C-alpha cells in the first residue's frame, strides 16, 4: 500500500480534529476530572484496609496503572464502531467500498490523525503529570522504548477488535447495543477498570488467555517494570504479537465473509 496516501489521511485527520477547539478543551478538562475521581476513589479504597500493598500493588501503582489505562483508552478509542455503524445505516458504506483502498486500512488511517492529536493533547500531558505527581514511581529507562513497542501492538489489537465489532453492525441495525457493550467488556477484561492483579483466581487465569489483556495490561506492566527479566518481557511482547497477527487475520476474514453475505443479500 502507498504509504504517502496513508499519511495524507492522517494529516487530514489532524486538521479536522484541530478545527474543534472547544472539544479539545473539553476532552482535556474531562480527563483531568476523571483522574481526580479515580484518585479519590482508590484513595478511599486503600484507606479502608490496613496494609499498603494489596495483591502486590500499592496505591500509587494502582493509580498510575488506572490513570494511564484511561489515557491509553482515550488515545486508542477511535469510535470506529460508531462510524461503521453509522455508515452502514446511512448507506454511505457503499461509497467507502468504492474507494481505491481496503476499507479496513482506509478507516484506520482516516482515524489515525485523531489518534495523533489525542496523543499530544491527552496522553502526553497525563503521562507527564503522573510522572511528576508520583515522583519517580514510573521508572524512566529502556522500559519506555519497550512500552512504545507494546503500545503499537496494543493499538493494532484494539483496532482489530473494534473492526470486528464494527463488522457486526452489517448484520443488525442496533449499533447502539453493540457500542454500549464493547468498551465495557474490553475495559473490564483488559484490566483498565480494575487492575488484573486484583481479579480473584479463576477469573485471573481466564483473562490471561484472552486477547484483551494485551491491550492495556501488557503495555502498562511493561512500563511499570523498570528492570524486566528478558524472558518475561519477551513473553509479554510475544503474546501481544501473537494476538496482533491473529486478530488482524480474524478481522479481515470476518469482514470479507460478511461483505459477501451482505452483497449477496443486497442489504
Amino acid at each position: 500500500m502507498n504509504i504517502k496516501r496513508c499519511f495524507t489521511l492522517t494529516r487530514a485527520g489532524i486538521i479536522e480534529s484541530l478545527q474543534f477547539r472547544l472539544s479539545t478543551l473539553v476532552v482535556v478538562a474531562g480527563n483531568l476530572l476523571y483522574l481526580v475521581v479515580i484518585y479519590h476513589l482508590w484513595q478511599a479504597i486503600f484507606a479502608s484496609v490496613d496494609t499498603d500493598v494489596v495483591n502486590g500493588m500499592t496505591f500509587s501503582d494502582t493509580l498510575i496503572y488506572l490513570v494511564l489505562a484511561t489515557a491509553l483508552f482515550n488515545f486508542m478509542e477511535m469510535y470506529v464502531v460508531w462510524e461503521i455503524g453509522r455508515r452502514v445505516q446511512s448507506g454511505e458504506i457503499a461509497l467507502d467500498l468504492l474507494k481505491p483502498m481496503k476499507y479496513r486500512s482506509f478507516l484506520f488511517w482516516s482515524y489515525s490523525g485523531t489518534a495523533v492529536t489525542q496523543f499530544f493533547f491527552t496522553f502526553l500531558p497525563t503521562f507527564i503529570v503522573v510522572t511528576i505527581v508520583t515522583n519517580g514511581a514510573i521508572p524512566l529507562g529502556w522500559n519506555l522504548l519497550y512500552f512504545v513497542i507494546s503500545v503499537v501492538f496494543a493499538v493494532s489489537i484494539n483496532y482489530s477488535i473494534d473492526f470486528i465489532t464494527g463488522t457486526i453492525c452489517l448484520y443488525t441495525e442496533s449499533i447502539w447495543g453493540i457500542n454500549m457493550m464493547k468498551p465495557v467488556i474490553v475495559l473490564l477484561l483488559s484490566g483498565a477498570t480494575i487492575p488484573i492483579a486484583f481479579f480473584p483466581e479463576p477469573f485471573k487465569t481466564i483473562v490471561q488467555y484472552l486477547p484483551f489483556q494485551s491491550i492495556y495490561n501488557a503495555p502498562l506492566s511493561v512500563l511499570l517494570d523498570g528492570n524486566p527479566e528478558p524472558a518475561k518481557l519477551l513473553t509479554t511482547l510475544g503474546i501481544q504479537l501473537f494476538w496482533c497477527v491473529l486478530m488482524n487475520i480474524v478481522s479481515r476474514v470476518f469482514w470479507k465473509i460478511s461483505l459477501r453475505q451482505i452483497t449477496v443479500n443486497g442489504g
Partner: protein
Amino acid sequence: MSNIIEIKNITKEFKVLNRREGLKGSLKDLFSRDYKIVRAVDNISMNITQGEIVGYLGPNGAGKSTTIKMMTGILEPTSGEILVDGCIPYKNRTRNAQNIGVVFGQRTQLWWALPLVESFKILKDIYGVTDKDYKDMLELYQSLVDIEPLLHKPVRQMSLGQRTLSDILAAFLHNPKIVFLDEPTIGLDVSMKAKIRTLIHALNKEKNTTVILTTHDMGDVDALCRRIVIIDKGKMLYDNDIEHLKGFFGYYRTLKIRVSGSLSETAEKIAAEFPEFSVSANDEWISVLVDEAKSTVMDVLSQLQKTYKIRDMQLEEISTEEVIKKIYEEGVK
C-alpha cells in the same frame, strides 16, 4: 383578498467564522479566530395573498431558506417586519406552526418506522384536527391520488417518490393556510414529478391554500406558479407574474424553418439578411431568435418567404428556464 403574508424590509445577518487553510492554519485557528458578518437576506419586501402559489427562486445560497425560516418563525430577522396571518412568526412560533405546513424534498418529517396512517393519526392529535375534518381530508386525498396502498406502509420502506407524496399529504392534513414546499420534486422521475405537481395544484384549488414553492426545476414553476419571486445574494431581483418575466428582456421568440438546399449556406445568407437577430442551424432546422421589439415574427416570416422555399416551420416561446438563467447570470437591468 387579504394578505396572508406581509414582509417589510427584512434583513438577516449572520456571523461566520473565517477558517484558515492547511495544518498551520488549523493550529492558528485553535488560538485566534476571525469572524465576518454576512448579510444573507438584504432588505426584502413582499406581500402574498391567500390562495396564491408563489415560486420562490434563486441560485444556491441566495437566501431562500433563510427567508423561509423567518416566515416559519424559527429565525428572527435582524431588522424589518414579517406578519404571517396577522401575527409575528418568531414571537408566536407554535401558534404560527398551527397555520403552516412544511415539506422538504428528501427529508421526511414523518415517523420513520411507522406506517403512514399512524403518522397521520399522530399529526391529527398534534394539530387538533377534528374527526370529521380528518375523514374529509382523507377522502379528498383518496380522490386525488391512490393513497390506499401507501397508508399501511412504513415510511422507511417507501420509495423517494412515495415518501415525498406522503410528506406533502401530511403537510396539508391540518388544512394550514400556508404550505412551504422546499424542492418537492428533487430527485424524482418525470411521471412522479407530474403526479406531485397535479396534487399540489389540486390541493391549492380545493382548499385555497397559499403555497410558497422553492425549486430549481422550472417545470414546477411553469406547471404551478402564476407569480414568481427571484432573489440572489440576499437581494430581490424580480417579483411579478410569470408572463411578465418573459417580456423582461424584450419579447423573444424563436422562429424555426426548414428549407430545401444546403442548411449552413442558407443559414449564413439569412444571418446576413437579418444582422440584428442571432441565427443558428442544426437538425435540419434553421432557428432565428426574433426580438419582437424590433420586428414581428410575421414580418420576418413573410420576408423569408420571398427568397426561400419554406417546407416547414415552427414557433417557439422562450422558456422560463432560459429567462431565469439569464437573470441569474446578468441580473436585472
